[in-house]
């Protein structure tokens, strides 16, 4: 008699533990302990128990049904935990919270989120998962122009971040900081791509195609530049 084989897609214990331990830790500190206090009604205790059951159930089926496991382990678990906090009401007010426990609980939730991020479906034996795209280029020395471009991008990003602190109006300051972060990230991302494209063996489109790709936006930029000049002259 041949013993029933273990499902090939079953996740190893370490993968489950990576979610289970932080999840239970976060649940215990931020959900379990508050509902175990005296005088707490049945409703929060039921939702807290539901959260824990959902997490354990999710980890028991994560190897076979990843979508359902994610639904239970992420959505149901977080929803039940949030419902518990809502039902606890004033029992969970900042005055009753232990700061150290809250900070450790936050860390637990962060680890729990990272743990779910690592859980993935394993490919079947012999299954090839090759994403289409441009061929990868082997490592090579950077072009001489690359470093100045990167340095310029880094300096621009820092200047953008610094300029946001000049905005003194509260509402506009929030917008300025958001815009500064976005600008800095965009400039760094584009700068690194442009720097890597200098003199490397990446096969870019032909120069004519590259110039044609920006023809429409170039015209739009020229129009905006003209409008800006007219506006500046009229002021």
């Amino acid at each position, binding site marked *: 008699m041949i013993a029933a084989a273990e499902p090939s897609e079953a996740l190893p214990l370490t993968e489950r533990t990576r979610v289970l331990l932080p999840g239970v830790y976060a649940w215990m500190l931020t959900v379990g302990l508050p509902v175990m206090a005296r005088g707490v009604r049945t409703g929060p205790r039921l939702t807290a128990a539901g959260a824990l059951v959902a997490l354990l159930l999710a980890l028991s089926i994560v190897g076979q049904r990843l979508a359902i496991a994610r639904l239970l382990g992420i959505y149901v678990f977080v929803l039940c935990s949030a419902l518990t906090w809502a039902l606890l009401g004033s029992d969970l007010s900042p005055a009753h919270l232990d700061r150290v426990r809250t900070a450790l609980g936050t860390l637990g939730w962060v680890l729990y989120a990272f743990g779910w991020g690592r859980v993935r479906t394993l490919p079947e034996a012999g299954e090839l998962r090759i994403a289409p795209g*441009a*061929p990868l280029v082997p490592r090579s020395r950077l072009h001489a122009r690359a470093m100045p*471009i990167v340095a*310029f*991008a880094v300096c*621009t990003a820092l*200047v*953008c971040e610094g*300029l*946001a602190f*000049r*905005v*003194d*109006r509260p509402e*506009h300051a929030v*917008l*300025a900081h958001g*815009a*500064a972060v976005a*600008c800095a990230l*965009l*400039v760094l991302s*584009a*700068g690194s*791509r*442009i720097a890597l*494209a*200098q003199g490397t063996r*990446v*096969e*870019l*489109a*032909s*120069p*004519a195609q*590259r*110039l044609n*790709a*920006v023809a429409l*936006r*170039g015209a*739009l*930029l020229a129009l*905006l*530049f003209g409008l*800006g000049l007219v506006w500046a002259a009229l002021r």
Partner: protein
Amino acid sequence: MGRVANAVNIVLFVAAAAAFVLGLRALGDRRDVQALYFLLVGAIALRSATDMLRPRSSNR
């Protein structure tokens, strides 16, 4: 021709970076319309600069 494309690429990138800086500076000086103008110009210029970096299509 390739050098021209590279030069245009870098000019667009520098223009975008300068526009972002000018936009944030204008926001600090309470010139909101100018800030929006420069941020818009910067976004278009940066998008143009990155669009020029698309690799050669493999199915052609």
